[in-house]
């Protein structure tokens, strides 16, 4: 999977490395600001109220 991505990135080694870094940062941002806030309510350890 990672090998496939690496082979399909354009540019030389330096360009590929830079693009990889950008991709990693983009995925992290997506996770932190979109996926995690969405997934959080489904997890139990944030329940602090009493409800019937």
């Amino acid at each position, binding site marked *: 999977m990672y090998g496939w991505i690496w082979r399909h990135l354009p540019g030389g080694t330096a360009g590929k490395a830079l693009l990889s870094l950008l991709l990693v940062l983009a995925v992290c941002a997506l*996770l932190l600001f979109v996926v995690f806030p969405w997934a*959080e309510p489904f997890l139990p*350890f944030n*329940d*602090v*109220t*009493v*409800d019937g």
Partner: protein
Amino acid sequence: MRETETWDVVDTDTWDEAPDEAAYTDTDPDTWDATDADTWDDAADETAPIAQVRDDPPAGERWRTVVRTIGELLVTAGIIVLLFVVYELFVTDLLNGRRQNDLNQQVHEQWSQETPSSSSPRPQVPGDAFAVLHIPRLGEDYQRVVVEGTSHAALKDGPGHYSDSAQPGEVGNLAIAGHRTTYGSPFRDLDLVRPGDPIVVETADSWFVYRVLGDPATGDFDTDPSGIKGLEIVTPEDVQVINPVPDAAAGTPPTHAYLTLTTCHPRFSAAQRLIVHAELDGTPIAKADMPDGPPALTEG
């Protein structure tokens, strides 16, 4: 890289069934390496260069890709879970810290603009700043802006006021929920409170000093004259803790002003709830009389 080479050799061994055992004498797995493989491959078939042999076998190559991809996905999943832990333990605190700052500024601006006559109960919108909570036991400067409502979104901003519960100082039960972990963890150390500890609620024009129930002399939460425990651990379904008279039947008419804080217990779990009950001590103190807060704020 070392791993890949090992796979190469093992694969070679399985799909290239040609080499006879006599030619391949090195059976110790530890010494299997590319050089060995080359040697015995060449010996077995001089006409088939090793590179061509490696390109040829589709089955082995495909399996290797499948296994490698599964491995990569598993490692990726592990990293995502770790990132989620970082998000919960650190990023949510940062987000909440910023939000609390904003709310604090907002609520004080709002209060300073209000004329005394307009301080009658105004309609409360979920998520709006509701009051400021001070718990000196959790730090001299401990203060959190309480928001209206206990929805998931509201509790991200700060402790939340159960919408149907009493107003500050009102006879009945003022109930507030807050996070034990994540989002600033306002109630992380709520289990440190002791009987008699002040919990101060600040509104636009008044201070309300509540005191944790129990016997301050012995530190026993269970021996308050009212019969209500100062601190208890209950199941998530025990809604009677936020009744107008805590732990009494829902219809019991209240005669005192109580304060109830709820959070999860134990930390990092939601199996139970940690509950703290307090009762209004004396009468509300007008902010005009004590702009810097009641003496209870600096107690202990």
